[in-house]
């Protein structure tokens, strides 16, 4: 596998840093890939624009930030505006259709507009599951990690008593795209 770059953009507290951490852990521990997760954040803990770049490769990762993004998932307007600049012309792009109303130019993107946060609140009752839903969306669209490996890993990782809801989160992510 050649270098593959994913960028997740959101506002602080939405859970994308966790999504990125899960993705790299699965890629490295379950699949022996090289992986790196590089978060950017502002001094504001909650509410400020954040992003996490995830880089996966069969070889040791050299440059630790995304510069030609293959897949971009964003759940808020401000981080969308700030962080879409390095997204490739033919990238997979997923945006929250309610929270990112103004897309601007969309190049030749394979674009998915989904009411992500709204559906998470409605179906899972808590946006804390955004991380796992985002992970499942990323897995389905990029196939960069194996589905079974993801399910296994999330089962082990899930805090006690949340396994069932996390499995539902995976299902929701897959159904949304």
């Amino acid at each position, binding site marked *: 596998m050649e270098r593959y770059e994913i960028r997740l953009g959101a506002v602080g507290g939405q859970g994308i840093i966790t999504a*990125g*951490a899960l993705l*790299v*852990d699965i890629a*490295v*521990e379950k*699949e*022996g*890939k*090289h*992986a*790196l*997760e*590089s*978060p*950017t*954040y*502002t*001094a504001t803990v909650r509410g400020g624009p954040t992003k996490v770049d995830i880089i996966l490769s069969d070889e*040791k*990762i*050299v*440059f*630790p*930030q995304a*510069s030609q993004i293959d897949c971009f998932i964003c759940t808020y307007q401000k981080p969308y505006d700030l962080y879409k600049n390095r997204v490739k012309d033919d990238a997979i792009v997923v945006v929250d259709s309610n929270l990112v109303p103004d897309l601007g130019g969309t190049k030749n993107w394979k674009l998915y507009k989904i009411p992500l946060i709204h559906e998470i609140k409605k179906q899972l009752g808590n946006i804390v599951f955004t991380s796992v839903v985002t992970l499942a969306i990323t897995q389905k669209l990029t196939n960069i990690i194996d589905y079974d490996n993801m399910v296994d890993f999330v089962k082990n990782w899930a805090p006690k008593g949340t396994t069932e809801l996390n499995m539902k989160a995976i299902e929701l992510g897959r159904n949304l795209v």
Partner: protein
Amino acid sequence: MSKRKVFQGNIIVAKAAIAAGCDFFAGYPITPSSEVSQHLSKEFPKMGRDFIQMEDEISALGACIGASLSGKKVLTATSGPGFSLMQEHLGLAVMAEIPLVIVNVMRGGPSTGIPTKPSQADMMQTRWGTHGDHPIIVLYPAFADEIFSETVRAFNLSEKFWNPVILLLDEVIAKAHEDIEIPEKKDINIYTEKVNVIKDLNIYDRNIGENPPRVDFFKGYPIHIDGLEHDSHGWPTSDPATADKMQHLRMQKIYHFQDEIIKFNEYHMEDAEIMVFAFGVSARAALSAVREARDEGIKVGLFQPLTIWPFPKKALQERFRKVKKVLTVEMNMGQIKYEIERVSSDDVMKKTLLRANGIPFTPKEIVNSIKEFTK
């Protein structure tokens, strides 16, 4: 199943410190270095090692100095604003010849600057931040495995040369979570000097190039430990001959062993006509750029220093006999470029790629700069 696991850069520092035998940490948490202290605050108590959070960075380094005097291997971790506060104590540690390791995860400056963005602008501060002529060792890893090995090396060098060692890190690399195979204990080379009980008052006396003995200052004969210039048993003096001798002893214990202290990596330098000089995250961008430029037939290589101070003058001067162009890439307004100018002759063409706005150079930007340089 892979032996590799994913750890944050700061956590790799903490794990390496534990492996190196560090048994005392005092610090005051600051972005982007906080996870070093966070991790050790959890791990040290379980291991019977000491962790203390102090009220500020001045007292943090003060506590480290005290612990080091009793024979502990000590660490503190900070960022620019905290490192500025530590300068006075750093000078004391140099003057009194006290081993300690300071991690400085750089962030935008001056002052409190840009707390959450990377910068490479403390290069000269690590060399000259504390006043007076003084020797210093500064290491600067770029990859996850280097973070581990250079942290261990920082402790080893500090222990061996009785001097503070500074480990510089980029915010990007300290905050990134990256896969690494943590070496097994048997594969980690740890240097520990025997801690002696003071039986001879002349502890600062030795020949040029020799190291002083490691002693527990709180056992045996009492020794005067001072930031003032001192004689061979630590007593303040302004005698010119003694001052001259002590200055040389302190400087030469480092500069005499430069070949042992200086480490660097070279990539694609065999037939290089252009050399990129870069460190930390800039070196990682530069390595990608060098490979991309090579694919287009440009003979370019990368020199990545792991030791910043003492500066790798001899190695670079050897390279400059073959390479006629050097591109220095650094995330500041121009600091190490002056060292490159100092160690290279006028017939070496110099170019810089400088930026201090918190955004690391991308490989593409460096490729473009290399291409322009070929013209």
